[in-house]
């Protein structure tokens, strides 16, 4: 089942019809550069009818922007200018907007093309470049003591770059079951082992099972293989850092309009919903067991879950672009190997996470200093205490 496809291809100011539109980060609105009229696109959940009860969700609904990628689709797309009729070529791998070389109209790649370049929704940047620079500087500033000299030498937080990352946002209605062993302590006592006293425990052992319905609202999944750790490059970069600045306020995502992207770059989606099903099921299961923790109170020795099942009754996907500020640094390692370190700032919430390359020799030397500083008083206690 596929949600209704929106019409797109040529963005005009709703008031004067100009195509010169830009995104104002301050107001969070699109602004016509000709008549200064400002407006925002409709929220995507309302636009697609994805704001209905998740508990009643049956089957799979995939929005137009999350549809299967045509691997043969060319990244180069020809747009027909609706201002003058000229044909303008655009490389969707790098751009979603072009200017008609005849009439100077702006052409926006809002039409759904089957190569994954155009999502259903976008969460515009709310964190400014200045705020991102400050966040990166503060994060790295606390980690300079043992940072590698090259990182310190090359550190230029002003080089942080705004990128729109592709994600699937899924609503899920699932039945979850989990089975395992739980233990309840019945007695705690000490026994003499040689010349030592040791604690021992007695426990009742239970067969524990839980079955429940779980609904999840706006579960965010990576839709770029590289960011999801599914690419061959996963050992050469710190993608988990970008993942760690989630979540986004997905409820505020608006219908995609290329004008929101402005000067920012974007990364194309290259995963289909069929390739994220396993991850989705794992996340549903993990969320389910997290919910169950509160219901395991009597098992004071804990529970060891041993098997589980997830039956997804209904799921609906939409694809969205979400904003990330990225600062990157290449660490050159021996043998020509490199590791790409990121410091990422969530472009909506300002949450920050990063990876700073460590000068291991210096850190080891400092650890040796800590050892000496601790060893001297310990020795004193043993000798004279």
């Amino acid at each position: 089942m596929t949600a209704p496809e929106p019409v797109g291809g040529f963005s005009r100011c709703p008031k004067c019809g100009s195509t010169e539109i830009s995104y104002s980060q301050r107001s969070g609105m699109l602004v016509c550069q000709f008549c200064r009229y400002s407006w925002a696109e409709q929220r995507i959940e309302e636009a697609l009818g994805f704001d209905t009860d998740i508990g009643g969700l049956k089957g799979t609904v995939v929005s137009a922007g999350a549809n299967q990628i045509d691997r043969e689709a060319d990244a180069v797309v020809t747009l027909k200018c609706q201002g003058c009729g000229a044909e303008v070529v655009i490389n969707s791998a790098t751009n979603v907007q072009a200017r008609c070389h005849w009439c100077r109209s702006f052409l926006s790649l809002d039409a759904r093309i089957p190569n994954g370049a155009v999502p259903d929704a976008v969460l515009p940047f709310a964190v400014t470049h200045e705020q991102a620079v400050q966040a990166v500087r503060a994060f790295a500033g606390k980690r300079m003591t043992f940072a590698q000299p090259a990182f310190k030498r090359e550190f230029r937080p002003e080089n942080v770059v705004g990128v729109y990352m592709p994600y699937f946002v899924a609503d899920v209605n699932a039945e979850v079951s989990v089975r395992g062993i739980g233990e309840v302590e019945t007695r705690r006592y000490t026994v003499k082992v040689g010349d030592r006293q040791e604690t021992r425990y007695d426990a009742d052992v239970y067969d524990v099972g839980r079955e429940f319905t779980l609904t999840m609202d706006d579960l965010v999944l990576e839709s770029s293989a590289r960011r999801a750790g599914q690419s061959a490059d996963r050992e050469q970069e710190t993608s988990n850092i970008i993942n760690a600045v989630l979540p986004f306020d997905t409820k505020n995502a608006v219908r995609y309009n290329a004008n929101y992207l402005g000067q920012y770059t974007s990364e194309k989606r290259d995963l289909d919903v069929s390739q994220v099903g396993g991850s989705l099921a794992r996340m549903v299961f993990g969320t389910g067991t997290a919910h169950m923790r509160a219901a395991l109170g009597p098992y004071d020795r804990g529970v060891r879950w041993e098997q589980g099942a997830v039956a997804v009754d209904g799921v609906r996907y939409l694809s969205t672009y979400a904003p990330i500020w990225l600062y990157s640094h290449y660490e050159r390692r021996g043998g020509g190997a490199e590791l790409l370190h990121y410091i990422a700032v969530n472009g909506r919430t300002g949450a920050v996470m990063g990876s700073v390359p460590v000068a291991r020799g210096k850190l080891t030397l400092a650890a040796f200093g800590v050892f000496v500083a601790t060893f001297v008083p310990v020795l004193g206690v043993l000798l004279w205490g």
Partner: protein
Amino acid sequence: MYHAAIASSSSSSSGSSDLFVLAIPFVVAIAFWVVTYRRYRNQDARHVFEETPSQVSNLRSLDQRVHHRTGLDFSEIEGRNDDDALAPIPIEVTGEVSR
């Protein structure tokens, strides 16, 4: 040399506790290295997806006592994983995402 000094200053019954105290500087130094490295590299950082808005309903529970164990060494069940949303528990997936 240290051992000789310690031996001369300690009774034989306190030998094991002396060794334990001697291990403290090693443990502190290793902990310093590991904690600092982790703070810089954040290799375990991840999206806490289990905090996504979600709701549980229609909960059915099974709690069946099966036997009793005595003389256990540890205060927690072996292999405890109820507090780990990423625990590699085998799961069977059916329905809309199994295709």
